[in-house]
Structures are given as C-alpha cells and as structure tokens.
C-alpha cells in the first residue's frame, strides 16, 4: 500500500531526544550488590571462623545463626537474581516489540 502524498492529516510529534537514564543504571547496580550480599550471607558462616558460643563449627550440626544466614542469603540471592532477570526480560521484550525496524 503506497502512502498517499496528499494525506489529509499530518501529525507531528514534539518529543525530546531519548537519553540514557542513570537512575536505572544505578538501580541495576544496587540489585547486583544485593546479589553479592546474598552470596556473602550464604558463605559467611563457613568462611569466617566462628568460635564463640553458639557459632557454627566445622562438622557440627547447623546452628540457628547458620540456618538463618543461609536461608535469608539464599532468599536475597534468589529475589535479586529474579529481579535482574525480570528487568532484562521486560527490556528485551519491549525492544523486540517496538524496535524491530531499527
């Protein structure tokens, strides 16, 4: 279908040129740091030499502190990774939908 040169309506859009958002980049960096914090929480009971009363000892049953650290660390790691992947998937989907011509 050819475009009519005498189109009755000429719609013009006045929009600012797109610029990269530093806020989104900083927020994604924060999610990455949260991922690292979750990984650190999982590893901390085993990496640090817990020698006090109630601390985790090598080969012993997990203490309450170790259970809490590992479970919350895994939760933080999973949520932050899921948020990162979700953000990436949403961005890629939007680009595939509206930026195919470029």
């Amino acid at each position: 279908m050819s475009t009519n040169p005498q189109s009755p309506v000429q719609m013009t859009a006045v929009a600012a040129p797109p610029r990269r958002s530093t806020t989104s980049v900083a927020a994604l960096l924060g999610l990455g740091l949260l991922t690292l914090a979750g990984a650190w929480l999982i590893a901390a009971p085993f990496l640090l030499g817990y020698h006090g009363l109630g601390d985790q000892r090598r080969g012993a049953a997990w203490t309450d502190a170790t259970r809490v650290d590992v479970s919350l660390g895994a939760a933080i790691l999973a949520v932050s990774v899921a948020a990162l992947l979700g953000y990436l998937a949403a961005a890629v989907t939007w680009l595939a939908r509206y930026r195919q011509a470029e």
Partner: protein
Amino acid sequence: MSESAGLPAYERCADCPGAVVSEPVPVLGPFIGVVGSALCGLAGALLLLAPFAFDYRQGAERMPRSSVVDLATGGGVLLLGLLTAALFGGALRKRLRVPEPVVANVAEPEVAANLARVPEQSKPEPEPEPQPVAAPAAPVSDPSGALRDLLTPLVAALAADLRARENSVEPEGRQV
C-alpha cells in the same frame, strides 16, 4: 539499556499511515525492580532482628561473631534494598509522567473547508412554524469556535482513516 527515560518515542499507525501514535512506556522492568528490592529490604530487616529473636548470644559475655555478621549485613542489605527501591521508583515515576500530546495539523484545505461548512449545514432551515426541536441546535453555531476546535482533530482523523481505507481497497478490488 536502550530504554529512554525521557518522553516516549512515536511510531506509525498500521491502520492509518497518516498518523502516528505514541509507544507504550516500558514500566514492567522498574516495577519488577521495585518489588524485588523491597523484598530484599525486608529480608535485611529480618536479618537485623534475627540475633535477638533467636538469641544467638545464649548468655555469653560477648556478642558472637555470627551476630555481628548478621547485624552488619542486615543493615547493609536493608539500606541497599531501600535505596534500590527508591531508585527504581524514581525511574518508574519518570516513565509514568504524562507525555506531551501529539499536535495535529490539518494540512488539506478541503477538510478545513468542509469542517467550516459543518455548522452551516447543520443549521436548521427557517420554517414557518417554530418547532421546539430546533432549540438544541443552537450550540452548533458557537461563535467562539470552541466546538470547531474540538471537532477539528476528530474529523481530520476520520478523513484520514477513510482515505486510507479507500487506498487499501482500490488496488485490490475487494473489501477489507
């Protein structure tokens, strides 16, 4: 990320090539970020409470190292989660701002001429007997032209749509 935080871009309408429509603003990503970082902040708050809730100290004189790690990491995760949620919220707020409206310029003079004749054509002809039905037709001949300004983009868009449909039907010779 190539998503822009400024005003949304515009694209051609598939059904009416003479007009452009605005693209939807990508808001799903920042929304996921807000939810995820808020959940991480809650986990950090739980980490801050865990040494006291589960009594890691167990009567010891000094606070155990696991408590120190939990308090430090929990505070960091809480602050980082709140900060990240605020950043994602700021990005989401930027993208949800109302974009500037698309300005419509009527280029074809006949459309404007037809539009100018609309109030005259719709004006009821004088009749010998006054009818009460003719009274609501008074706002059509609005001297201020507010109604004309209101109807101008609508009539222009309708004309563009009809023109596009005619162009698509004629070469193929069949109805769409």
